[in-house]
């Protein structure tokens, strides 16, 4: 096989004449993290809302919540990217559509919107499951103590549900980082895209993708460690054990 490794390639100047390949990869990582983090905040807020709505005793609200989740779960992420990037500006009123298309960071904004909505449906599913996993007595006790429904959610149900679903939320957070790579189809120059152009320009395919893989692994490790720390910090002694045996 005629492949010569060149592990010093990262410090060589890329075809743009200014940056080394290493700094390009780092800028890709920056966009990956910026996209994933912004979308994650959006997904958490929307997902918590929709997930809570799906457990409320109001039938039409539950139907809408379920439809929301099914809509974002049953269309491939790639197609959703296209919908937000190419189709959404066309469906808006003409002046607004043009404005959206000319935004300076259109790729980034669309990618955040798309990933945010996509992941919010998955977060909503976890939130619903978390709330439903609580013993029924918790809500009954809250009502018996004279709390209104919103108060019961705020002070009794949600604080427990969120602690229960922290582990699946960790994997959703890792998923959103991985899924942000799909945004390269709408020209977001994130980590995978930087690795791909490095491979194409330098012909050092192995080195380029090895670097990207290693960076993704490191980011995952950091997320796992951080989330474990959060889990430990917010844990209520005895809660998980009690809820595991309770139902």
């Amino acid at each position: 096989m005629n492949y010569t490794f060149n592990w010093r390639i990262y410090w060589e100047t890329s075809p743009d004449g200014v940056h080394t390949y290493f700094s390009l990869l780092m800028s890709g990582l920056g966009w990956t993290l910026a996209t994933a983090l912004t979308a994650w905040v959006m997904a958490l807020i929307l997902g918590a809302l929709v997930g809570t709505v799906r457990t409320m005793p109001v039938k039409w609200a539950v139907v809408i919540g379920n439809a929301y989740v099914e809509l974002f779960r049953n269309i491939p992420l790639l197609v959703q990217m296209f919908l937000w990037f190419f189709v959404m500006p066309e469906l808006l009123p003409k002046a607004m559509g043009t404005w959206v298309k000319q935004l300076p960071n259109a790729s980034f904004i669309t990618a955040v919107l798309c990933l945010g909505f996509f992941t919010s449906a998955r977060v909503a599913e976890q939130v619903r499951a978390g709330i439903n996993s609580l013993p029924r007595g918790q809500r009954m006790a809250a009502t018996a103590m004279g709390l209104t429904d919103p108060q019961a959610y705020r002070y009794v149900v949600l604080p427990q549900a969120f602690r229960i679903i922290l582990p699946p939320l960790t994997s959703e957070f890792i998923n959103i980082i991985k899924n942000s790579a799909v945004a390269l189809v709408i020209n977001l120059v994130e980590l995978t895209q930087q690795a791909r152009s490095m491979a194409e320009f330098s012909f050092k395919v192995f080195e380029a993708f090895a670097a990207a893989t290693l960076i993704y692994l490191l980011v995952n490790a950091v997320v796992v460690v951080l989330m474990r720390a959060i889990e430990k910090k917010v844990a209520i002694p005895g809660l998980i054990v009690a809820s595991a045996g309770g139902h």
Partner: protein
Amino acid sequence: MFANFDFDVIARSWKYLFFDGLAFTLKLTVLAMVGGIFLGTLLAMARLSSKRLIAMPAATYVNLIRSVPLVLVIFWFYFLGPYVGAWIVGAKDPVKVGDFASALITFVLFEAAYYCEIMRAGIQSVPRGQVWAGYALGLNYWQTMGKVVLPQAFRNMIPVLLTQTIVLFQDVSLVYVIGLPDFVGIADKVAHRDGRLTEMYLFVALVYFILCYSLSLLVKQLQQRVAVIR
């Protein structure tokens, strides 16, 4: 809103879209599912092995694959396939690996990691006593696995395996990044040829939604039926 839309573009190209594009997607999905479940089951058995020399590499592989984006894995195989092929055959120059073969290998190896975790849970859901009973009857490891444990594990995990297959069906659309003629790829070609991006992408989303949603309803029904018998 839809006044200056031209949905005629779909009427003109539906044969191409479905018989070439969707057929390609379905073929890749089914083959990758079969290969992925087979390899995934082997990986799950390896991960549950009491021999560290077998369990460790399998666990490393599964965790590695599960922490990188599918798009990156597709690029890995697409760009490095020719070099690895040359290394296997012993040729001096990179060999040409067919697009379909390259995509299929990628998806089998990638999805195997996810199917592995499902099958591992499935195997662990079978009571220990079943294994002991198998050995007590004089069956060896492969017989116990093949005739006693795996059939029950599969049965328990069919709904989850199918849900993962729906995910795989959606994931196949990512072969777009290497320009393969799957459902999205073909729709994209037609959309750009006729300048009808909006109509085409909306149609593609609708088709995916109908297919995936009805499949997920089927899975839910199956889940209830399995649950009733057990």
